[in-house]
């Protein structure tokens, strides 16, 4: 029923079409390679020797007319050569298939009769949005700009953050039928060559008709594709990518998507927010620790409620126990059913809020949460305590900065809820230790996923559960392999004093 887009498809057509040098023949072959009925293909002839081919909706018309077409007469007269046309980028190729791919991406192809080369001019002008703040990674402090769907703009943004000659950008393409451009970015004197090579190797192995999002890349290159937890950091913030590159990581960009992958990624990284480094020391630490507390609460609060109310009454204070017992008298369902029902409602509200347009989505959240919650209590379907528990658990999962990780964390509580309903607190403790074991056995490009918590690396703790001052972070984290251990930092204390 569902075709696997990565199944190797038989290539019936030949892999390349060489330029013959005969203009009409080459033009016909180029049009054939472009496919379709040619509705959007523009062919502009300049005498019977030159022919400019492009797709009208993919190019910047101004660039085509001003920078290319306007210079063709000079080209005809021999004043300039084809590689002197003033555009951003010029490439030459002897393969019409390759030329077709470039035209499909928004370039213009210049066919020159008697020449067995086609010149490709970068005239891309696909509409793109302005870099703006990512809706899933809002910050209170620090840069607000976010990546967009255009690869070049994204590379420009990263270069702005990391304007160093050591920044290496390796371009690649993915997809057999639909070719998408991508880039692998790293700092060549910091990133471990082994990691870089491994990333490159895994990217090369990706096969598929099309690769349209970094999620596809992630699923193909990660070590544990079946795990709930991401092993690559998925971000839309240039400053975040820049900070990770400076620690020795590798970033993978893909044209057409604003999400960038950063590998290797470790679990504590998903609990870090960029503003932790910009806020005051105590504030940053408080927020960081709060996130870990939120993680524990998100995973264990609802299962703990089930265990306490079903099995371990003696762990509740007597007064609270009496209050819960009173509410339980009127509740028609056992605690596990109450909890599952409320969790499902929260999930429905959350998903509905995502799909609806912004103003409606917010209203939906408020209306759904308050009115539905109130109604469900008054109808005595569930008790008020479970509503509080589930709401707090949901809110706690929202404070996890990384969206992908928070999705995984949300799901961890369901098996814990099942275990707690069957075996009480023993079920929860068993579930937690299995969860810890699973995490400890995961790797991200060879790096232990729980670093620096397990294996415990004391030096790296300065930027994991807590965050130290940046002027104290003199070395790069041991958890991520890198070449250059020392950072240039260590501002003397009292630098502000004369």
């Amino acid at each position: 029923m569902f075709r696997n887009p990565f199944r190797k498809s038989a290539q019936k057509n030949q892999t390349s079409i060489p330029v013959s040098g005969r203009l009409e023949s080459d033009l016909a072959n180029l049009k054939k390679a472009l496919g379709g009925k040619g509705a959007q293909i523009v062919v502009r002839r300049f005498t019977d020797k030159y022919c400019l081919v492009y797709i009208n909706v993919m190019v910047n018309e101004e660039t085509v007319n001003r920078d290319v077409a306007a210079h063709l007469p000079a080209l005809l007269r021999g004043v300039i050569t084809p590689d002197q046309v003033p555009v951003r980028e010029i490439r030459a190729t002897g393969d019409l298939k390759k030329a077709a791919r470039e035209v499909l991406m928004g370039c213009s192809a210049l066919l020159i009769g008697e020449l067995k080369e086609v010149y490709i001019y970068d005239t891309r002008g696909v509409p793109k949005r302005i870099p703006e703040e990512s809706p899933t990674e809002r910050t209170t402090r620090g840069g607000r700009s976010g990546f967009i769907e255009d690869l070049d703009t994204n590379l420009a943004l990263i270069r702005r953050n990391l304007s160093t000659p050591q920044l290496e950008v390796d371009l690649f393409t993915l997809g057999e039928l639909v070719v998408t451009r991508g880039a692998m970015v790293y700092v060549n004197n910091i990133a471990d060559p082994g990691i870089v090579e491994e990333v490159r190797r895994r990217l090369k192995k990706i096969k598929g008709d099309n690769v349209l999002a970094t999620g596809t890349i992630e699923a193909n290159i990660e070590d544990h594709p079946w795990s709930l937890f991401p092993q690559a950091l998925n971000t839309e913030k240039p400053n975040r990518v820049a900070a990770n590159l400076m620690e020795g990581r590798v970033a993978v960009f893909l044209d057409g998507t604003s999400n960038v992958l950063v590998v290797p990624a470790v679990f504590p990284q998903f609990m870090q927010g960029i503003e932790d480094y910009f806020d005051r020391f105590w504030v940053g630490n408080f927020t960081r620790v709060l996130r870990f507390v939120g993680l524990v609460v998100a995973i264990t609060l609802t299962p703990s409620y089930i265990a306490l109310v079903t099995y371990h009454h003696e762990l509740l204070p007597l007064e609270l126990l009496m209050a819960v017992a009173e509410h339980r008298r009127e509740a028609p369902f056992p605690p596990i059913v109450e909890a599952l029902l409320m969790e499902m409602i929260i999930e429905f509200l959350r998903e509905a809020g995502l799909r609806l347009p912004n103003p409606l989505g917010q209203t939906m959240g408020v209306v759904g949460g308050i009115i539905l919650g109130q109604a469900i209590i008054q109808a005595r379907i569930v008790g008020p305590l479970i509503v509080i528990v589930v709401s707090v658990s949901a809110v706690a999962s929202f404070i996890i900065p990384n969206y992908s990780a928070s999705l995984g964390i949300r799901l961890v509580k369901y098996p814990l809820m099942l275990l707690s309903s069957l075996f009480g607190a023993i079920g929860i403790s068993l579930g937690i230790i299995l969860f810890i074991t699973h995490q400890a056995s995961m790797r991200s490009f060879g790096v232990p996923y729980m670093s620096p918590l397990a294996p415990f690396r004391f030096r790296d703790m300065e930027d994991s559960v807590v965050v130290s001052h940046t002027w104290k972070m003199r070395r790069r984290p041991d958890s991520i392999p890198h070449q250059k251990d020392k950072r240039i930092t260590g501002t003397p204390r009292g630098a502000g004093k004369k």
Partner: protein
Amino acid sequence: MRRALTTLFLVLALCSGGCWDARDLANVAIATVASFDLPREEEKTKPGDRVLVAVLQPVLSEGRKELVRVIKSSGRTVGDARSDRANRSFRMVEINMVRTLLFGEALSGKGLSDTLDIVYRNPLISYHGELAVVEGRAVDVLELKTTGPPNIGERVGSLLMEIPDSNFVPLATLADFHCDQFGFGRNPVVPLISRSDVAGVQIRGLAIFKKDRMVGKVDKEAMKYLTLLRGEQARGVITFPLPDREEGEGTLMCTGHRKVEVKMDGEKAEISIEVKVTGDLVEVEEGFLNGSHEKINQVAEAAGEYIAANCREMVSRLQEEFMVDALNTGAIARAGYGRKIEKLDWDRVFSQAGIKVSARVKIRNYGAIR
């Protein structure tokens, strides 16, 4: 495919298990206080019944007419009574939350070891639970009708929890009783309570045990000195006569600790107990002090003599009337002399020992006026 099947099998196996211990709070009666008495004839369900067990359960329903429900059952043993209780309650009675254990005077006089065995063995009952002996029958306290909250169970619990800070009444927990019952040279003391018209229950003094059997009781006044002699962590008020005054009295709010030395000469013991009391002078006859440092010393000395005299009286009662070492000096002797002491009947040794008692009072301050 095989992995999926294995996982499915395991999940199904797991799901088919579990839930044996699930108890919905809706179907559970939470008991907070338990009492143990000798049953009257009409209370016995079988002729051989030797103990009456009652548990107090707060009532939760809205519009409730009564605050608590008392479920009584009798049996040959406490365990037997428990099984009979299950026949009388439409909800499963949960004893994990029992915090207060009350014992009737008559049962205490017979001995509590059989009664307490099931309590010690039950891992679910907290060792932090408070104990008290009730003058008369313990179940009568549970059945006291109170007007409005808190219910009688809460009142008894609060009374016993707060008392270490009020009137030299030691907090007697299950752990303390267990240690004193089975430790060499130790004997438990437990607060003695009775019904009161005003608050429901009141402290009447202390019950003195020889291991598990109650052998005597002392009133509220004597209780202070017994507590000081035992070195218990308790605070209270002592009113004493002022020096050179016929009717003048002062009051100390104080706490005490003791220093005990035990010297053995064969089977004869020489025990010296120094009681050190530290506290604040909260009340004194008007004009007595006048801010004079000398007067304060005199007051402290007078208080010390008064306390020492009362302590000596308490000691003689323990030696002559009760013949039991309620001061736990045997444990100190054991610490000094080792296992060979354990061969002795320490209560007899205590009764015949020469015991010197002295008391020293240190007044920290005398309040906001001179």
